[in-house]
């Protein structure tokens, strides 16, 4: 990327006398800028001082003490600002940038608004300003492109002509008078522009990074010009006929002729080989045509002027935002699409080669491991849980007259089964794209369910807001910061030293406990089994009283406890047995060991995003109408029934919003992977792959294609958003 700068400085100057002139002017400009800079800094300081003083002064009663406080704190704050602005270099540039951009935008915005306040009351002033502004703009453009001689003089005269013509057209009502004014001013402006026209304007050529001069004088063929003009006039008349002869035909005729003249004068002829006389004819003719067109329009009446004011206002308010969106979102998106079909530097069309590269690269898209899915423990356990959940749901459902009926217990078990099966699938299928899908699935599911669970748990609990704040806090931490924080959590030190990462300490600790066969070991086993027995008793009782689904849930949650007790007895945790019988501690390489290191990275994002889902769900739950809950209780629904049958359906739209937001966010995951593994150890994701291809290898074609893949992946969400907004807007 930066290579371009070198090219520019080599060829980026041109041997034109103007250039030297420009340098001299630039030096003078720097002096002016320094003064301006100083003035702005002073302005900022005094502005802060005044603002502080006014704020305090107007806060309440005006006693002498308050007045003194206002003045002194204003002075102190102003001095502080001044000191900061003048001493800390960074602060100065920033503050200056902000102040200048705010002042400039505000000025333009206010001026535009004031200008379009005029039409209803002061029409002639409006037309004067518009005329002057239009002429100024056109000549400034010509000037900027170095297309005319004596640019200063010409621009000034043109502005004056524009202003006078605008004023006259805004006041004179007589038809022929208007025509004379329009034709005269238009011709004059055309002559002004073209009589001094140089044979060249400046063009910057992208590929060589060098300036090129591009000739523009048109070589007129008067026959062609006349033909084009007459042709345009005929087309204008035909259109007028076709559209129902609404206005007098003169306007249509003139419009057609003018456009035809422009085509014949500027588009059709060979540019650059013509003479000044040619240019003069082409310019004056076009000017006369446009001027006459303007003059033929009568002065609008009051209601029309009001409409001009109203509709222009909408665009004044919209253009800054829409312009930004167009330059930073829409045009770049189109260009990325375009680049994705071209080679590394965007020079040659290569068809679908980049996309082919993506899907044929084993690092990005690899289905080879699919046979491994069915053998994995995760898959078997998951499938089993799913089976249990579904079977029990069917049995329970039959009894109450449904084909199948999920409830908290069975639904939860089935959901865990689905998640485990999905993990097994994603752990077996390798490559960037599957990693991304794995991220999207895991983070969306776990983060929204954890957020929902915490929102429910915290609802009306004591210290609710404190608990929620602490869970929410990671939202304020950057992804980079979170990555660093979790690197310390996952730290694995050499086994001969004590572990300093929390998770490996726990893991090695469990290993030691399991090996020790001491008191702690037995206590842990008894605790696990005791809890499991308690859950078992609960399960049996619940089953007997008809709460079959709670029973299944309790029984299933007892299983891991039993498994843990068994594993502890059998030996589990951070140790390994060497061949010679030695037992040494061993750590988990959370970040390095594929494929499950992906899940440890996902945990970081879950840690951050759960606060977000919790806050939204919490608000949605609190917004459920109290009458509904009351009615459910009166009807004898239990807490869990109220939750699943009343609250969940009520917050359904919120669940949709949260999941779509999360999917978009997770699809683009970048920072965490970049900081923690940089895509190594089989943790690559699309966004990081794209960044590496585009910005470290400078392969813009492949990078763009990867961006497009990402874009296509979020397209469904985009359409869902559109429909949602449409619904809300109706």
């Amino acid at each position, binding site marked *: 990327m930066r290579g371009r700068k070198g090219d520019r400085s080599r060829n980026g100057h041109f041997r034109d006398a103007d250039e030297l002139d420009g340098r001299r002017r630039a030096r003078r400009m720097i002096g002016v800028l320094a003064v301006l800079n100083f003035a702005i800094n002073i302005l900022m300081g005094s502005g802060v001082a005044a603002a502080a003083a006014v704020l305090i002064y107007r806060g309440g009663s005006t006693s002498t003490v308050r007045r003194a406080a206002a003045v002194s704190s204003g002075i102190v704050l102003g001095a502080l600002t001044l000191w900061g602005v003048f001493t800390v270099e960074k602060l100065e540039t920033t503050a200056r940038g902000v102040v200048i951009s705010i002042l400039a935008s505000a000025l333009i915005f206010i001026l535009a608004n004031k200008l379009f306040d005029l039409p209803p009351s002061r029409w002639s002033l409006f037309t004067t300003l518009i005329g002057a502004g239009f002429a100024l703009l056109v000549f400034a453009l010509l000037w900027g492109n170095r297309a005319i001689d004596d640019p200063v003089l010409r621009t000034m005269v043109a502005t004056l002509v524009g202003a006078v013509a605008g004023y006259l057209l805004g006041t004179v009502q007589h038809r022929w008078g208007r025509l004379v004014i329009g034709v005269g001013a238009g011709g004059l402006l055309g002559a002004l522009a073209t009589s001094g026209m140089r044979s060249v304007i400046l063009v910057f050529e992208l590929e060589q990074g060098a300036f090129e001069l591009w000739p523009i004088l048109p070589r007129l063929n008067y026959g062609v010009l006349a033909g084009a003009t007459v042709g345009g006039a005929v087309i204008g008349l035909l259109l007028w006929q076709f559209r129902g002869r609404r206005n007098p035909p003169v306007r249509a005729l003139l419009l057609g002729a003018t456009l035809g003249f422009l085509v014949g004068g500027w588009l059709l002829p060979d540019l650059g080989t013509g003479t000044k006389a040619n240019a003069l004819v082409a310019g004056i003719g076009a000017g006369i045509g446009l001027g006459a067109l303007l003059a033929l329009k009568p002065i609008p009446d009051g209601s029309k002027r009001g409409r001009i004011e109203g509709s222009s*206002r909408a665009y004044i308010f919209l253009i800054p935002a829409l312009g930004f969106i167009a330059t930073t979102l829409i045009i770049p998106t189109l260009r990325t699409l375009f680049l994705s079909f071209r080679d590394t530097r965007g020079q040659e069309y290569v068809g679908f080669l980049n996309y082919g590269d993506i899907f044929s690269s084993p690092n990005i898209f690899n289905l080879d491991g699919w046979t491994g899915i069915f053998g994995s423990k995760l898959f078997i356990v998951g499938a089993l849980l799913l089976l249990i959940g579904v079977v029990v749901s069917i049995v329970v459902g039959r009894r109450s007259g449904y084909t199948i009926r999920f409830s908290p217990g069975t639904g939860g078990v089935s959901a865990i089964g689905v998640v485990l099966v999905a993990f097994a699938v994603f752990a077996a299928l390798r490559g960037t794209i599957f990693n991304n899908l794995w991220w999207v699935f895991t983070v969306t599911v776990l983060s929204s369910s954890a957020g929902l669970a915490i929102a429910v748990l915290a609802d009306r609990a004591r210290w609710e807001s404190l608990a929620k704040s602490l*869970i929410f806090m990671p939202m304020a931490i950057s992804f980079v910061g979170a990555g660093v924080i979790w690197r310390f959590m996952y730290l694995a030190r050499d086994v001969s030293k004590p572990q300093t990462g929390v998770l490996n300490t726990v893991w090695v600790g469990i290993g030691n406990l399991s090996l020790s066969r001491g008191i702690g070991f037995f206590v842990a086993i008894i605790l696990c089994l005791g809890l499991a027995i308690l859950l078992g008793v609960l399960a049996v009782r619940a089953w007997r009283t008809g709460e079959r689904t709670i029973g299944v849930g309790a029984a299933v949650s007892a299983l891991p406890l039993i498994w843990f007790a068994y594993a502890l007895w059998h030996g589990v945790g951070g140790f390994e047995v060497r061949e010679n019988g030695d037992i040494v501690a061993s750590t988990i390489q959370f970040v390095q060991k594929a494929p499950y290191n992906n899940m440890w990275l996902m945990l970081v994002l879950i840690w951050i995003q759960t606060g977000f889902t919790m806050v939204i769900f919490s608000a949605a739950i609190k917004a459920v109408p109290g009458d509904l809950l009351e009615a459910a209780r009166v009807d004898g629904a239990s807490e869990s029934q109220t939750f699943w049958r009343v609250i969940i359906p009520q917050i359904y739209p919120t669940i949709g919003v949260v999941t779509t937001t999360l999917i978009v966010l997770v699809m683009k995951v970048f920072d965490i992977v970049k900081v923690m593994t940089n895509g190594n150890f089989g943790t690559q994701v699309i966004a990081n792959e794209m960044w590496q291809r585009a910005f470290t290898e400078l392969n813009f074609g492949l990078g763009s294609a990867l961006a497009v893949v990402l874009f296509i992946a979020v397209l469904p969400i985009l359409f869902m958003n559109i429909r949602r907004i449409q619904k809300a807007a109706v």
Partner: protein
Amino acid sequence: MTMLSSSGGPGLGKRTYSLLRSIPTWVLWLLVVLWTIPSLGLFINSFRTRNAQRASGWWYVLVEDFSENLTLDNYVDILASGSQGGLWRALLNSLAIALPATVIPIAFAAFAAYAFAWIDFKGREWLFIATVSLLAIPAQMSLIPLLQLYSGGGHITLPFLEKTLTLFPDLDLAGRHVSVWLTHTGFALPFAIFLLHNYISGLPKDIFESAVIDGADHFKIFWRLVVPLSVPVLAAFAIFQFLWTYNDYLIAVTMLGGAGQNFPATARIAALSGEFGQAEHLLTAGAFLSTLLPIIVFFALQRFFVTGILAGSVKG
């Protein structure tokens, strides 16, 4: 299912039931502790010496000798040292990026949101939907062309003529903060317009009508009525955007590229973390410092932040 009464269920027994009732609270606080441990560990470790950090986990702070193992050196070192200037400079850079990138979009979005909400013009609805639907476009879609624009200007090759015209001059913006501001502004606008429009379109219609009767034009209505009334939502968006831009890494590292002296704190920390081995003990302090300001802003203005998030999603 209907056999269970709200008072606890006959089959389960009162004691079991009350035990069951208290489980949620225990689970909640267990989760809160689990959620806090990572940040707490980093925070504590940032005050421990390099040797202490390497020898034992942060929880040893409770039992070890304070005077020997606790220090502020990590902070002093990270703030001052570094080839590109200390973290001090990076933190200032972060502010220099985040403040303008917050202020600029607010102004533009407020104008646009007002126009979409209260000015009648042709094609208003579809233009609004088109604008807001850009919310979901991944930033990756724009990065390459934007960087080309900032580092080489914008050009268009005219068909047939084989000439290239310059639409946007090469201002050599890549590597400067301006490029990051502009990019953030563009990316923030759809969301900002959406958020502000939700609020501004919900303001009572009467006040606008009476203002029009009093002879106020749109410009006056905007400044005198809409801006003062929308302060809550403006603040909400400002906090949201500030946290977002302050914490951003992708756009900063892409647009600033090799200009390490202009890197914000996130990019500096990420670079430090790449050389994990040597500066590990400083990384704790660095990571904490870089999150300090967002956390303060977050806790001080949480109410607005939550309002912003909710207005952006639940109402949608």
